[in-house]
């Protein structure tokens, strides 16, 4: 087990490094003029050279990659307009347009995105799975049809409509804003409630159908009949024996969804004015802020790889037949 996890971590790290190098190549070797774009219309030659140097564009690509990795490991120093800017490890570069180390920018944005996504996940997992189980148990009844219909309906409207409805009708919620969790957990949660509700409701619809389907399949299994034959309560049959098995395939979907949401919560962030990763990278995209974009790619690939790893580890915990050597 431990060897398996170590091996997976090693391969995960190598995936991240390959992504890093590849995106480096794609971004910095691209036939564009990043320094010029950043410099803008009224660009003096000095300023242009300055920006080039700060992006290390004047060096060969291999050296740029080396510097980047070195910056990640031990930090580095940027020179801009004659001033030296220290960028401590793990240094993800320096955003010229924002005048801030990228690590700091990511460090501010990441907790916001993680808070939105994890809080939303709690909402949709609870609502979706419970609704799915109820629908599965009442399969074919009006309640079941109503739930499936509602879920299809929610999925059919664009996500921003869900967000709009939440903003319009859930006016009793506190104003959306990000307050750090450690300062005051209550204001943290309050400021995120609207985003959680939106993300939660929109995804609960899909999770209702996933868990309904998974539960219906599981409830038809022979071991459920065995459980009933023991004379345990129906609730125990459904929740202990049924849900325990039905949840395993949902865990896989959840891992993938979580990774997608962590890297793409941009809608939720933008609509609720929460400056998370999505907002940060979108701004970087528009302003051609290469170091921030690079960091976005890096964080994204780390998130994907880590989620995959977590799902696999979760699987070995959930399903005792998957014991890895």
């Amino acid at each position, binding site marked *: 087990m431990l060897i398996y996890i170590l091996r997976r971590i090693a391969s995960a790290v190598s995936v991240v490094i390959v992504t890093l190098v590849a995106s480096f190549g794609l971004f910095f070797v691209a036939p564009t003029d990043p320094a010029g774009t950043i410099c803008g219309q009224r660009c003096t030659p000095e300023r242009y050279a300055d920006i080039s140097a700060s992006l290390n564009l004047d060096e060969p690509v291999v050296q740029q990659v080396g510097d980047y990795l070195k910056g990640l490991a031990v930090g580095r120093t940027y020179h801009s307009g004659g001033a030296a800017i220290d960028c401590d490890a793990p240094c993800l570069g320096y955003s010229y347009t924002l005048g801030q180390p990228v690590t700091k920018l990511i460090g501010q944005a990441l907790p916001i995105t993680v808070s939105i996504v994890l809080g939303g996940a709690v909402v949709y997992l609870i609502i979706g799975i419970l609704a799915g189980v109820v629908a599965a148990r009442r399969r074919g009844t009006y309640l079941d049809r109503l739930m499936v219909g509602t879920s299809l309906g929610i999925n059919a409207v664009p996500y921003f409509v869900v967000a709009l409805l939440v903003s319009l009708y859930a006016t009793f919620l506190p104003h959306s804003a990000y307050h750090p969790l450690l300062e005051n957990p209550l204001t943290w949660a309050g400021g995120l409630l609207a985003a959680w509700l939106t993300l939660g409701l929109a995804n609960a619809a899909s999770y209702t159908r996933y868990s309904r389907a998974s539960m219906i399949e599981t409830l038809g299994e022979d*071991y459920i009949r065995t459980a*009933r*034959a023991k*004379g*345990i*309560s129906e609730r125990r049959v459904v929740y202990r024996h049924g849900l*325990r098995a039905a949840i395993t395939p949902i865990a896989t979907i959840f891992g993938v969804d979580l990774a997608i949401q962590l890297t793409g919560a941009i809608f939720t962030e933008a609509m609720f004015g929460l400056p998370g990763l999505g907002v940060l990278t979108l701004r970087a995209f528009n302003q051609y802020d290469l170091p921030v974009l690079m960091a976005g790619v890096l964080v994204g690939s780390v998130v994907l790889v880590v989620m995959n790893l977590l799902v696999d580890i979760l699987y070995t915990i959930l399903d*005792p*037949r998957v014991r890895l050597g």
Partner: protein
Amino acid sequence: MTEPHLLSTPDRRPDTVSRTRRVAGDRTEGQSYLEVKDLTVTFPTADGLVRAVQGLSYSLPLGRTLAVVGESGSGKSVSSMAIMGLHDPRSTRMTGSITVGGEEIVGMPPAELRKRRGANAAMIFQDPQSSLHPYFTVGDQIIEAYRAHHRVSKRVARDRAVDMLGRVGIPNPRRRLDDYPHQFSGGMRQRAMIAMALVNDPKLLIADEPTTALDVTVQAQILDLIMELQQDFGSAVLFITHDLGVVAEIADDVLVMYGGRGVEYGRAESILGQPLHPYTWGLLESIPAVSGEPARLHPIPGTPPSLLALPSGCSFHPRCEFAGRVPGCTVDLPELVSRTADTTRASRCHLTDPAGIFETDILPRLP
């Protein structure tokens, strides 16, 4: 319609029966532990009413084994699930009567059924691979079955589970208790299922094709185990099987089912030695010769009837080679009654001299 004189057979094993403990059946002197009377189980479906079991009657005293045989779809499992109260009342209609230890099962409220399920009657299923929960340890599942009916600590239940695993012949039971089902072999899994079924000391054990999914050698071991445990526990065993070889080995009595109805009933020796129903003849002819080459295998021609629309008269008539010999086969449904001097047996067929036909037409064809 029903024939109580036929079905309440005297016990062949008074010694085991006298050992019955705190038998609820004590209240119902003279009645068998399991009594099924005119049971009908139907499922309303989109295609129509599926008549899975109709007019089924039999009885099973403690200490005896009744084998229920018949082709796929003849209603063997549906009728036994009815005894366990395992049918979903929302999608199943049941009429008639099933008494277990004198208590009526048909129409019993679900909560009451649940209390009895696994305690008075327990069931083991065909495929031990799929019948055990893959995510829980074997011990966990046995302990759960015990604690469903006994208010005891986990420790006590655990000791009981170890004890049961040992009794069904699993070596090293204390250690194997924490294994998952996939760590057991097929035969061991079925042993574990049996341990789980018997953990509450049920007086009725229903075994639904418990050996079909197993290797031949393992099959024999499991059969021996069930017979041995029946001796020890003095319970009644309802044994469902396709395999007449198994019937010969294990059964005291036999019920042959066709299209949801009982078509022949009697002592195992009589049913196997001199069956009186053409369908039972067909079953006998379709057993592969045990020792020799499977050259003499005659499957019954035709297919089992549709339960949505059973054939008129005798349900077996479209497949019966003797249907033309007697009038009424296609119009009158024969009753399951005694048709010979031997009142312990009954068959549902219009033929006037089935014993003679068996001697002249069937016996020479058998392997």
